[in-house]
């Protein structure tokens, strides 16, 4: 039983990081019908910006909550700018062309970031600095919850809550929903669709940066290819939840994190990475539109 709770806690913790990254996939898909293959690499850049900013600020020498927050915010800004740039200069010029061109460009941007990362950061893994002193927060019997897990879950939940608030309760968020439904109709409302699309990329990339930092903190190893598998799993989580739906992405990510931990705990860690694909196949067989998937019949 205690073992189960430990897995549960670990699962929620990794699941919420998947959630931060999955949201970016789902939002971009919702607004452009594009699978943004570069998103996992933006997550990687988030981790590396955190690494370099932390060292630049000396946060690795003197761990403090304040510096950790500064590192987080600056990395989010860096990735927000990166997401904006990628959309503005790589995707926007191709928007009127067939979807496939855009998809291939996204793969190109992804390869560019991965190889650029290997060139500039070096191919071998780096150890992410301990920005906050690691402590056991509390312990009940054999269940240990570290302050890191509290931070991971707390921060992810806060950011996801903020995002939900922006999308569902602000004017800009409603404009995002309008653009997701139809660029043309949205523009007839006086909505500048390009600005909304930029905004979407910025938001998604900022969340991915936060995800990158949290992974860096939790696992300490980061490398330029870390976005590949993690991004793929987050994408699968978004599909499981119903791509295009933000609550779906969060639910899918939690499901992914929890089942991964349970499989590792009760079966074998060799199945960890295969599980994502097993879940994907299962969902595609049972409910192809995902858990929260919308019917597409509305678009006539």
């Amino acid at each position, binding site marked *: 039983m205690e073992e189960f709770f430990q897995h549960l806690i670990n699962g929620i913790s990794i699941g919420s990081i998947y959630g931060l990254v999955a949201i970016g996939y789902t939002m971009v898909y919702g607004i452009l019908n594009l699978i943004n293959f570069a998103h996992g690499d933006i997550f990687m850049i988030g981790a590396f910006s955190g690494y370099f900013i932390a060292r630049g600020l000396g946060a690795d020498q003197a761990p403090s909550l304040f510096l950790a927050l500064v590192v987080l915010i600056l990395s989010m800004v860096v990735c927000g700018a990166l997401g904006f740039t990628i959309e503005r200069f790589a995707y926007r010029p191709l928007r009127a062309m067939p979807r496939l061109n855009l998809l291939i460009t996204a793969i190109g941007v992804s390869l560019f970031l991965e190889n650029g990362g290997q060139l500039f950061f070096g191919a071998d893994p780096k150890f992410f600095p301990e920005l906050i002193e690691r402590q056991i927060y509390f312990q009940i019997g054999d269940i240990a919850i570290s302050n890191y897990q509290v931070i991971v879950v707390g921060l992810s939940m806060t950011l996801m809550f903020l995002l939900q608030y922006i999308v569902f309760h602000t004017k800009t968020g*409603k404009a995002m929903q309008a653009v997701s439904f139809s660029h043309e109709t949205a*523009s*007839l409302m006086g909505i500048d669709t390009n600005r909304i699309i930029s905004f979407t990329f910025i938001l998604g990339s900022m969340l991915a940066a936060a995800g990158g930092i949290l992974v860096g903190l939790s696992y300490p190893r980061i490398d330029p290819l870390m976005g590949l598998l993690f991004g793929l799993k987050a994408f699968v989580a978004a599909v499981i939840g119903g791509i295009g739906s933000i609550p779906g992405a969060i639910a899918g990510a939690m499901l992914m994190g929890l089942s991964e931990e349970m499989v590792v705990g009760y079966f074998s860690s060799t199945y960890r990475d295969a599980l994502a694909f097993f879940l994907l196949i299962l969902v595609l067989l049972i409910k192809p539109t995902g858990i929260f998937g919308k019917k597409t019949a509305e678009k006539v």
Partner: protein
Amino acid sequence: MSLLSVENLTVAYGAITALRNVSLVVDTKEIVTLIGANGAGKTTLLRTLSGLLQPSIGTIHFNGENLSGKSPHLIVRSGISCAPEGRGIFPNLSVEDNLELGAFIRKDSKGIQKDKDFAFTLFPILKERRRQWAGTLSGGEQQMLTISRALMARPKLLLLDEPSLGLAPQVMKQIFSVIQSINAEGTTILLVEQNANMALHIAHRAYVLETGRIVLTDKAQALLNHPDVKKAYLGT
């Protein structure tokens, strides 16, 4: 000077020319109707006026401003608002959110609230349904929402694309009388219709569009009695 003046407009979809050399004017406070059969080019004209399509030849002047090359969202800010064909509502947003998106370019929350209430007096059913997803509305209710939403921008010129499409006679009458009262409140209207009878009865002036060309124009009353119009559009 006219509020809207379109000169020698030619619009093509690739090799298909949908509008040829179309000229028309709409004066302040008028209801002008453009009637024409399926495929005549009515929607093409409204989409061009809204900035969704670029003309290959011709100019559009609105309120003293040249609209060529202007993007749709800026045209809305200039004062043209369009209720698109086929009820282009946002199905996954509530009726109220749809109305508020119509007022996207405005910042005066008091005025927006007032205009929302005005829309609810025009179409009381929308008030009852205001928290419902717009996609759950009936066809006629969606049409009411599309018109109300376009009004929320407080346009100088309202473009209506076939508001009668697919409506029962009773609902159609209601919508046309609302169009008249919107006009009485001071909004200029360009009404595109296949239902020539209804449109000519509420319009001041009319144009007849046939396969991309304007073939007739006159006072609406005069066209109601025009033999060609009677034969082709009124079935009498």
